[in-house]
């Protein structure tokens, strides 16, 4: 498992190969349906600064709070396809460098990735305890959206395994699997 360090540069992202397994350290930010919709409505200037150029994690974690200290109980990826209609614009306007999720994204998103220099990293769906262990909460924004939909800023240490499933050329492992599927 190769280690990469966030924040990621365009060069970092373009060096990642399709099918490669990596782990990430550094800041990552969660956002799901509601946070995507609000971010696009408000625009980068009026949204939390942590979203710009970030590693975006499609995740609605379970976070417990005691005396103002948060701890991540479970944090696996959520189905990325729900954000298919929103992600291309997010990548273009917020300069997202990597999207972590499960299940893959549409070719429209892959196009935006190729154009802007961004990758899709597939996390193992449901491996929530393993992933939670390498995350600590540093801040939370838009908490009014609820635990699952809020924007959680987290610090990752060796967060993985993640498979490079759409690379910065827009090539997708899911697409190649789909083409080979025997019905």
């Amino acid at each position, binding site marked *: 498992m190769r280690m990469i360090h966030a924040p990621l540069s365009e060069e970092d992202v373009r060096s990642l190969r399709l*099918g490669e397994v990596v782990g990430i350290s550094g800041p990552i930010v969660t956002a799901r349906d509601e946070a995507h919709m609000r971010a696009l409505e408000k625009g980068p200037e009026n949204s939390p600064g942590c979203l710009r150029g970030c590693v975006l994690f499609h995740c609605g974690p379970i976070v417990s709070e005691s005396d103002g200290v948060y701890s991540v109980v479970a944090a696996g990826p959520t189905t990325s396809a729900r954000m298919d209609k929103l992600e291309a614009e997010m990548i273009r306007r917020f300069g997202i460098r990597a999207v972590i999720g499960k299940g893959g994204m549409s070719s429209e998103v892959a196009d935006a990735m190729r154009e802007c220099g961004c990758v899709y990293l597939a996390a193992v769906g449901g491996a929530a305890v393993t992933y939670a262990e390498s995350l600590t909460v540093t801040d939370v924004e838009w908490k009014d959206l609820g635990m*699952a939909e809020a924007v959680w800023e987290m610090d990752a240490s060796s967060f993985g395994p993640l498979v490079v*499933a759409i690379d910065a050329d827009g090539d997708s492992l899911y697409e190649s*699997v789909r083409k080979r599927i025997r019905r």
Partner: protein
Amino acid sequence: MIQLPETTEDIVVRLLRLANTKLPEDIGWALEAAAGWETDSIAYSQLGAIMDNAKKAEFLGRPMCQDTGIPVFYVSGRFDSSVRGDIERAVRRATAEIPLRPNLVDPLTRENTGDNTGLGAPFIHYRPTDDDFLQIDVLPKGAGSENMTRLAMLNPADGIEGIQRFVADAVLDAGGRPCPPTVVGVGIGGTSDRCVELAKEALLRPLDDRSRDKSIRDLEEGLFVKLNGSGLGPMGLGGSTTVLGVRVKKEGCHTASLPVAVNIGCWATRRASVRIYRDRPPEFTQGVFR
């Protein structure tokens, strides 16, 4: 000191904890078997991470997946109307204590109730019987797999082949979204509403429980082989483990209908059952009661 007996509410909190933190044994075995025959290296790494995660969840007593879903309850045996209140309070407590993620929202305003109850939830099916116990089965279903649910009112002439094609398409079109390898619940027959219920109830049957009905066994085994030969693989990233098992449940239907429903359970197909007796401690299982 006299120990007060556990209340039904306490028992249901325990049931939810068991279901969310411990993967049923039959599913663990199926994952291990799959890892044994998987030759694709990415697929193998996904299965390894899944098994590793399940072990950690059990050891730490944490939910194995952050999507603790919407729990569906099946209440059978002897009970009275107080059981609803017991389950409702238990869900609220389990949400705070385990903790579970508050997932329940108003479908239109999207406002979260905060404790997984309200707006009709928890959802409970009641089947009174003459047994001397109260049985509660719980199936917490996450949205990733639940969102892939399909129903078709096929023509009787579509036959077994039509059923197979419909189920295979539902699983393969879902791709990586329901976190494969999955357990495929198939309901056949009933009316449209009953058929969807059957598909979900099929997920309550452990993978090592062989049906006595040959037509069901043939369908289950045929689909198992076909789907694992598809190449979709764990998380839709390719490989030879697409499903851990296929579970079919059938009931009678109208002579002019052939209803078929698919309800996919992710690898984290969580289930647990308890029997509560009047005069002895409750019995828990994640398989079948003996």
